[in-house]
């Protein structure tokens, strides 16, 4: 709306040669532990961006705080590494201000479901055209291994919860559905091709697309290396009826991969463009507003 972002996507696409996945990577070296699942997400996302031929300057990836939330700095697109739990509001504000951008929010299960849980609910309801990737490792990696909302209630490897949390697990897909999300998928960091397909579908979905990515924490949840064996294609198939999806997702084992739910509903349009029939300039409109208070 202000500033020098006036060029159209077409102009920009024409001006750049087709890019490869690595062109979406920055030179910053990830701080992640060797073997961390988040590497897989980074790889899948750069592939997705290349596949969709999105000009890097038209893409913004924003995040909170956590190992997973370090993602933006490793990409050669516009990025914002915000504060813990607030990736979605950042994304919402950016998208509302700059609807033409492809805006992706990313982070971890702690960031998104614990401290950020409220924004998750309301972003699902809002159905703004955003993609939200949660790299779920069922633990707080960055702070050295505490239970997250998706952790099993009897996992007692954290000294903070020596007997486990005793709390029911947070069911990301079920909550997203109940909150009104229009696209819900589950991917696996160890399945880059499948994940790339899901991410591409999520970005192309008009509306809020939530992708839960099972992304093992090598360091604090070594047992998650078994996910490789346990994940399976989703048996539900995308259920287009919310009530049916609700039932199926409730019975889901949490390891089924694929598109779990999709629905085409109106996308949230923040504000309403000024009346097209109204031919006033911006300055005239502002003057008219000023005049309301003058006499």
């Amino acid at each position: 709306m202000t500033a020098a972002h006036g060029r159209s996507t077409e102009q920009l696409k024409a001006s750049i040669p087709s890019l490869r996945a690595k062109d979406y990577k920055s030179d910053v070296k990830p701080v992640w532990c060797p073997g961390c699942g988040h590497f897989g997400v980074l790889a899948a996302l750069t592939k997705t961006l290349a596949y969709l031929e999105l000009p890097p300057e038209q893409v913004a990836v924003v995040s909170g705080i956590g190992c997973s939330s370090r993602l933006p700095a490793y990409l050669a697109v516009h990025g914002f590494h915000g504060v813990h739990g607030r990736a979605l509001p950042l994304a919402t504000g950016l998208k509302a201000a700059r609807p033409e951008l492809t805006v992706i929010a990313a982070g971890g299960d702690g960031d998104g479901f614990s401290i950020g849980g409220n924004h998750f609910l309301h972003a699902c309801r809002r159905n703004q055209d955003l993609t939200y990737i949660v790299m779920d490792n069922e633990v707080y990696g960055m702070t050295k291994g505490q239970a997250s909302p998706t952790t099993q209630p009897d996992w007692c490897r954290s000294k903070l919860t020596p007997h486990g949390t005793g709390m029911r697990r947070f069911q990301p897909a079920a909550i997203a559905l109940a909150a009104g999300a229009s696209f819900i998928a589950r991917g696996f960091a160890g399945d880059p091709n499948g994940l790339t397909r899901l991410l591409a579908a999520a970005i192309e979905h008009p509306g809020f697309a939530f992708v839960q990515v099972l992304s093992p924490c090598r360091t604090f949840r070594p047992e998650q290396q078994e996910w490789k064996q346990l994940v399976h294609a989703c048996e539900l198939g995308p259920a287009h009826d919310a009530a049916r999806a609700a039932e199926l997702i409730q019975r889901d084992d949490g390891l089924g991969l694929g598109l779990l739910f999709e629905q085409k509903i109106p996308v949230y349009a923040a504000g309403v463009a000024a009346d097209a029939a109204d031919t006033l300039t911006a300055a005239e409109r502002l003057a008219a507003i000023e005049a309301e208070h003058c006499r």
Partner: protein
Amino acid sequence: MSGSPMSGTPRSGAPTSGTRPDPGDSPPLTVAVTGAGGSGAVTAGLILLEAVAAAGLFGLLRRSAGPQIRGGESAALLRFGPAPVHCAGDRCDLLAALDWANHERFAEEIPLDADSLVLTDPAAGTPPAVVAAGDAALREIGFADSARERAGGRPNMVAVGAAGALAGLPLDALLDGAARTLAGKGEAVVAAARACIRAGFDLADPAERLRKPASAPAEIPQRWHINGNEAAGLGALRAGVRFVAAYPITPASEMLEWLAPRLERLGGTLLQAEDELASVNMIIGSAFGGVPALTATSGPGLSLMLEGIGLAVASETPIVVVDVMRGGPSTGIPTKSEQSDLNAALYGLHGDAPHLVLAALDIGDCAHTVAWATRLAWQLQTAAIVLSDQSLGQSRMVGEPAPVAEEPLAALQHPTAAGDAPFRRYAVTADGISPMSVPGEPGLAYTADGLEHDPTGAPSSRAADHADQLDKRRHKLLAHDYGPHWAEITEPADPDAVALTLLTFGACRGAVLEAAARLRAGGHAVRTVALRLLAPLRRRALMHALGDTRVLVVEQSHGAQLFHYLHAEQALPAHARSLARAGPLPLRPGEIVDAAAALIDAHRGGP
């Protein structure tokens, strides 16, 4: 005072810190209308304010309500006169009580004395002890009876007529005020109201008039009819704000309600967020995208936003947060005014997080200060907190318009060349202002970060990077030339004779100006300094302005927050004194006069 000197000559350009004359000599009059829920006391006040405007006068309308959510007793407190009115008076000249429901709740806000006149309707019961036992003269007028005689008549309209007559407002102005205020209610309502006003006007005893009837001037200069929340919204639009995210809270909500439809007309957006954590981060997102953005809140919301404001500071993302202050701490007194969020605004961010703090000096100045804050935030790539308060935000004035500043919204500091190296978004520069790109600009991608970072934005915990970025973020604020806007300064006739400076900020400026006028009239040469820019404090300029005068720091907080802040910055002489009182009652000019006079007396004969 946003460039509208009381002389009445509209002045173009930004407000200055120059000299301003004393207000006119016909002192303003205070008229209160009170009544139970549904009695229409507030409507009566609005009509009277419109009548004041129609008569070519200036006015200020405050409101007060009991604890009921809706429909409880309420009071409209109008003060008006031939010069701009910027504060509540010391006393009430005329009270029209539609009834006496829970009137004692307003007793503190409507100080009556032997010169006060009270209109009471015998049909509505007898005045409570707090009124009956006082010195005020009581006059019975049958508001209800008179209204009953007219089709669709309402007692409050009779009261408008009677009070208007006694206050010296012309009948035409009152009728005009009713027509404007009630226009949306249909012709029949207007006609009935006008009939009642006429009746009330005739019921008032001309011998008891408190002012000679004013005759409306042939031509009335352009006036603003606005409250501080609307003015703040207007300032935001002027400065280019096109995205607002916010969560409702008293007394800031009206700013948002005013902005929502108007932003839309300008192609912008207002988004009601799920909470304040969301709203502040949403505006950071918008600003990162290059679209100026603002949020408005009050104390509790400000507390919740502090983490986000710190992110804006560290990531150098320009945002504007307007805090319409109310009584604190905690939920406090949501409907009443206080200036006690100053500390939180100045110091509330964890870590070393220099940012801008400004305060609007009056209702009209809300427009100027918010616009200036927005420009500064963008020029300096930082967060600006603008302090307003309930007394500005929810009071309606008829006054002089705030001029539109000449400066457009500052252009982003654009990188001169994209280069091939990674974009050095956080490069250290001479003025401390780093180049900033926005998404959409090829080759200039970077990751904004609240983690400490090197010049490219990559996270760094190196001491040198930390020092560089801390120095830079401080330096850019200190090195900026803020021009004359930092304060409004008024001088007495003989500036060289000044013995006392009244130093204040924000909304207390109105009462300080009036106190100064009275002190000057009493032969005391006093200066006033009202700070608009609180952080970074223009310490040198302030100390220069104070000279070697005695200083009384005036503010509306229990903890004397401004006083302590100025000491923290070593900007006050050791002999400076503090006049600090908490809300909910407005600081009145008389209190300031008394404190100032005591100080002058105490030091007569040398410091």
